[in-house]
C-alpha cells in the first residue's frame, strides 16, 4: 500500500520538483555568468567556467537567484523575524491575505446573488450577463489604479480598495459557475417539484441550490486564486508600503531580486494553500451531500 502510494502520488511530484530545481540552477548559472565575466574582465583576469559556477550561486543581486538563496531569504524573513516586523514576510503575507479573503468573500457573495437574479429573471439574464462578461475583458492592470485612486479620494484606504479589486476579479467565475449550477437540475427533477406544487423558493432551496453546490466549489477554487492576484495587483499602483505586492515593488525598485523571488514564491505557496483549503472544504461538503467517493 505504502509503496503504491509512493509510486503513484509522491514519485511523480518529486520528479517534477527535482527537474524544476535542476533547470533553475542551470538557468541561474547561465544568466548570472555574464556579470562574473565582466567583473573578471574589469580586473584583467581570466576566469574559467569551473570558477564561475560557484560565484553565480551566491551573488548579492543576481539576475536569477538560485533556489537556495530564495529559501534562505524566505527562512530569514519568516522564521527569524518577528511577525510584527516590517521585514517579516509573514507580516506582508497577512496584509495581502486579509484583503484577499475579504475580496473573496465579497466576490463569492456577489457572484451568487447575481447568479440567482440571472437564473430567476429573464430581464436580468438579458441585461446583466453581457456586463458580467464585459467586466472581465477590461485589463485588471488598467482598472486597478482607478479603483484605488477613486476610493482614496473619498477617504477609503487600506484593505478595502484592494478587496474591491479582488471582488471585481473573483465574482466572475462564481457568477458563471453558479448560473450553470442553478440551471443544472434535470427536467425530471423539476417536474417532480411541479407535481408537488412546490413554490419557486422551495424549488430553489430544495433543488436548485443543492444541485449547484459542486459548481460553486469548482468556481470558488478559481475565485480564491484570482482574489490573491487581485490583492497583489491592488498593492502595486499606489506603491503600498505593506503586502506581498509592496515587497515585489520594493524589490524591483532596489534591484533586490532575491526579495522579489521570495515574495513571488510565497505568493504562489499562499495561493496553493488557499486553493487546497477550498478544495478540501468542497470534498468534505460533497461527501456530506452523498456524492459518490470516486466522483468527488
Amino acid at each position, binding site marked *: 500500500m505504502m509503496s503504491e502510494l509512493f509510486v503513484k502520488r509522491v514519485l511523480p511530484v518529486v520528479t517534477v520538483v527535482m527537474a524544476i530545481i535542476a533547470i533553475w540552477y542551470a538557468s541561474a548559472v547561465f544568466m548570472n555568468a555574464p556579470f562574473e565575466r565582466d567583473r573578471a574582465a574589469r580586473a584583467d583576469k581570466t576566469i574559467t567556467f569551473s570558477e564561475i559556477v560557484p560565484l553565480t550561486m551566491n551573488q548579492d543581486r543576481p539576475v536569477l537567484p538560485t533556489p537556495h538563496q530564495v529559501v534562505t531569504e524566505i527562512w530569514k524573513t519568516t522564521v527569524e523575524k518577528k511577525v510584527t516586523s516590517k521585514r517579516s514576510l509573514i507580516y506582508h503575507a497577512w496584509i495581502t491575505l486579509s484583503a484577499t479573503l475579504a475580496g473573496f468573500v465579497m466576490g463569492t457573495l456577489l457572484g451568487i446573488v447575481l447568479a440567482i437574479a440571472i437564473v430567476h429573471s429573464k430581464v436580468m439574464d438579458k441585461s446583466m450577463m453581457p456586463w458580467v462578461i464585459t467586466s472581465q475583458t477590461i485589463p485588471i492592470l488598467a482598472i486597478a489604479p482607478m479603483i484605488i485612486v477613486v476610493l482614496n479620494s473619498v477617504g477609503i484606504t487600506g484593505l478595502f480598495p484592494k478587496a474591491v479589486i479582488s471582488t471585481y476579479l473573483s465574482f466572475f467565475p462564481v457568477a458563471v459557475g453558479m448560473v450553470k449550477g442553478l440551471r443544472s437540475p*434535470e427536467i*425530471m*427533477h423539476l*417536474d*417532480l*417539484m*411541479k*407535481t*408537488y*406544487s*412546490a413554490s419557486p423558493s*422551495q424549488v430553489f432551496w*430544495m*433543488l436548485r441550490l*443543492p444541485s449547484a*453546490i459542486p459548481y460553486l466549489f469548482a468556481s470558488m477554487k478559481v475565485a480564491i486564486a484570482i482574489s490573491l492576484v487581485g490583492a497583489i495587483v491592488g498593492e502595486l499602483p499606489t506603491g503600498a508600503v505593506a503586502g506581498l505586492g509592496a515587497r515585489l515593488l520594493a524589490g524591483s525598485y532596489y534591484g533586490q531580486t532575491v526579495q522579489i523571488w521570495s515574495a513571488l514564491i510565497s505568493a504562489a505557496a499562499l495561493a496553493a494553500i488557499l486553493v487546497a483549503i477550498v478544495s478540501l472544504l468542497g470534498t468534505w461538503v460533497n461527501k456530506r*451531500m*452523498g*456524492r*459518490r467517493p470516486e466522483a468527488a
Partner: protein
Amino acid sequence: MQAPHVVQDFPTGSAAAGPGRPVIEARNLDLVFETNDGPVHALSNVDLTVNKGDFVSFIGPSGCGKTTLLRVIADLETATGGSITVNGMTPSEARLAGAYGYVFQAAALYPWRTIRKNVALPLEVMGIPKAEQERRVAENMALVNLTGFEGKFPWQLSGGMQQRASIARALAVQPDMLLMDEPFGALDEIVRDHLNEQLLKLWAATQKTVVFVTHSIPEAVFLSTKIVVMSPRPGRIYDVIDCDLGTERSLDIRESPEFLEIAHRVRDGLRAGHAYDE
C-alpha cells in the same frame, strides 16, 4: 364503460367512498406542440374514463402520446383542446390538491438526499410536521420492502431499489391515484417481473387508482384491469380492452389461455393502429 372490477372484492375502508365512480374524464382531448419543424399533433380526439380503483395501462409505440396523456392528467402539459377533469376538477386544481403521486421513467431521486430524505421530500414541500413525516416514511419504506436502507444515498442502491424508493416517495403524499410513466422500463426482466408482482400487491392492499404507461404487452396484461391501446401520428386511442384476470395473480398466469387471448388482442390492436409501420 366497465362495471365490476377487482377492487370491489376487497373489504373497503372509509377512503373507498364510491368505488367505480369516474376520477379521470377526458373528452375530445387535443394537444398540439408547436415545434421548430411545425406543429406536432401529440394527442388527437382522446376520450377516456378512468374509474376509481382501476388499474389502467396506456400501451403503444413511442410517439403515440401515452406519456403526454399521462402528463396532461398530471398537469405537466396542458391540452390545447377538449376537456379533462381529474377528481371533478381541472388538472391544475387536482395537482394543487395533491390528487396524485407521480412515478417517472427514472427514479429521479435527489442524489444529495438519503433515501429517507428523498421519500420525505414531498412531505417537506407540503409542510407536514416532522413526526408525521417520519411515520409516513417508515410506513411506505416498509410497503416497498426498503426498511433498513433509510440512511443510504441513491447511488448505493440498485436500479430496482431506487425505483421502489421513488414509488414510496409517490405514496408518501397519500394520494388516491398513482400515475406511473414506464417506471420499470429501464430495469432488467427479472427485476421487472418482481416489481410487477409487488406493485400488484400494493395496488390490492391500498386500492388506489393506478394509471400506468408501458410499451410491454405482458406487463400491461398482467397488471391492468383496463388496457388503452394507442397509436401514433397523431397520438390517439385505438382500442380499450377490459382485462380482469382476478385478484390473486401470480406470474404463472402469463401462461394461461385468458392471458394469451388478451395479449393477442392487444397485439392485434397495436398492429392495426399501424404501430408496426416504421
